[in-house]
């Protein structure tokens, strides 16, 4: 992580309690500029609460939060002047059309020139594929169309920080793909902070991920670091022949920390944990091939974000209860 890069969002001990329910517990968060920051967690983890605190819609019961170095309570309006926000369930004024909605939002940020504002509105409508429905009242829109309008209104102001609460939740696969493409395109202009349940999407576009559970930060870091998993580097090896001899040879290597045995189609299936990835990459396959076994499969274990997520949330090393 480049320390010199300024943080767009910083929270210190940020907490929120509703009556007796602690929705957020002492959250310390740092979001780098121009990153796509995935904010993960099960329902009730505190994701929306965190977003609302950053927007000044609710007040913290402890700690502090800054966005662009400005205090989220005292300088909320100044912060919101640089943010684009898509709520989890977007609700707009039903009597407005899509174009009027974007015009209303744009008027909160820009006072002119009218031609440039209208051009921006057209650009946003096109981006979310709503040009043909721009002048229809929102009350006639489907859930997916509202969601796409939500993305357009969030970005109409060329925001420096785009906060998206479950942006792809009610979209079909094509819609989801489009949203992810838009997010990727926007990365060079803005920082994207988004919460989601769709782990696949996070893995595809995010560069930093936070996992929140029961109001508490459970994991935070670059996606590559999280995908390595808590088990470290593991190789999958399928082999047959004199397996016990090979096992002794492998375990004798100083960079091998253990072997988990298994069976696959009548062959031995190993998961070899190593402490030195480079040494393993150079020596493990060579050692096996030169030994008394036939190697039928050899690969480095790839973790899915879902595995990491389940490990973190369920506290189980194998990712399943």
């Amino acid at each position, binding site marked *: 992580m480049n320390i010199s890069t300024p943080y767009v969002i910083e929270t210190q001990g940020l907490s929120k309690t509703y009556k007796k329910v602690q929705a957020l517990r002492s959250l310390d968060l740092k979001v780098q500029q121009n990153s796509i920051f995935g904010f993960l967690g099960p329902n009730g983890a505190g994701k929306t609460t965190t977003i609302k605190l950053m927007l000044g819609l609710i007040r913290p019961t402890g700690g502090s939060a800054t966005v662009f170095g400005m205090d989220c309570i005292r300088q909320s309006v100044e912060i919101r002047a640089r943010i684009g926000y898509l709520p989890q369930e977007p*609700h707009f004024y039903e009597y407005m059309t899509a174009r009027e909605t974007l015009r209303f939002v744009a008027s909160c940020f820009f*006072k002119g020139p009218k031609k440039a504002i209208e051009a921006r509105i057209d650009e946003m409508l096109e981006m979310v594929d709503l040009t043909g429905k721009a002048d229809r009242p929102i009350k006639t829109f489907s859930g997916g169309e509202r969601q796409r309008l939500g993305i357009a209104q969030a970005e109409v102001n060329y925001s*420096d920080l785009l906060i998206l609460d479950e942006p792809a939740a009610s979209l079909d696969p094509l819609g989801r793909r489009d949203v992810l493409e838009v997010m990727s395109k926007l990365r060079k202009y803005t920082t994207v902070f988004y919460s989601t349940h769709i782990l696949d999407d996070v893995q595809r576009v995010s560069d930093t991920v936070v996992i929140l559970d029961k109001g508490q930060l459970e994991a935070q870091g670059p996606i590559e670091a999280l995908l390595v998993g808590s088990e470290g580097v593991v190789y999958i090896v399928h082999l047959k022949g004199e397996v016990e001899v090979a096992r002794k040879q492998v375990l004798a290597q100083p960079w091998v920390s253990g072997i988990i045995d298994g069976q696959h189609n009548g062959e031995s299936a190993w998961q070899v944990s190593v402490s030195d990835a480079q040494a393993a990459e150079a020596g493990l396959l060579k050692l096996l091939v030169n030994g008394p076994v036939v190697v039928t499969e050899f690969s480095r274990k790839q973790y899915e974000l879902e595995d990491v997520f389940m490990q973190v949330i369920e506290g189980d090393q194998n990712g399943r209860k």
Partner: protein
Amino acid sequence: MAGNSAMQLVNERGWRRGLGSMLKSELSRWWKTRMWWVQCLIWVGILGFILSAILFSSPDVPPSGEVGVVYIGLSGFFPAVGVVIIMQGVVVGEKKSGTAAWVLSKPITRPAFILSKVIANGLGVLATMVIVPAVLAYTLTAIRTGDPWNLPRFLAALSVIFLGHFFFLSLSLMLGTLFSSRGAVISITLGLLLMQQTLIGWLPFLGNMLPWKLVIPIGQQVDAVAPCLFLGTHNYSPTLIAVIALESLLFVGIGLWRFSREEF
């Protein structure tokens, strides 16, 4: 902000930030939808029908002044019910639907949000429930009696009628910030509107605090403010105008204070 060099940024500061956008949006709710003509139709229909019955049901032409006093009473009472119905969901509806949270995620201050509702709805009520039916009433009475009402005095009476409506508008708005159910807002405001005369009967001092005597006399004597202004008599308490105006401002003030503490 990236890529927006062609745009001129809004540079309003303080509580007014976003007031222009919100006001435009709220005014468009009245004037760019069917709301304005539906309200005009309702109040022109109700008040026009009753007034026509008074003017045309008898072969004798009624005195123009008496018709005016009756009209002031009618237009001071019935449209107030409409105000309460319209205003019941103005704040509560937005809190519940999530549009308030969405709007307040933009650079719009909470005072701007509330004041835009007060101004836009106030103007809507003034135009559709006070002015338009009054134009019809003035015209009909002038045609039938041949004795048009004194225009400055009629306008003074209309101002007082509007003040009465504004009392219920601001009360509804304040209650909308205090409660999260439409039922609570409408039952309190409608209850007060309909029970005013009874309450004043029980506790006469309330006559100096409630808007009833702005438009409707309590006894046989014409001592309500608007009819007196209309007739050019002075048998009324001018302090009631100030009290109702102050109460209305107090309601708006409480609404602003409460809304600034609201969590979405």
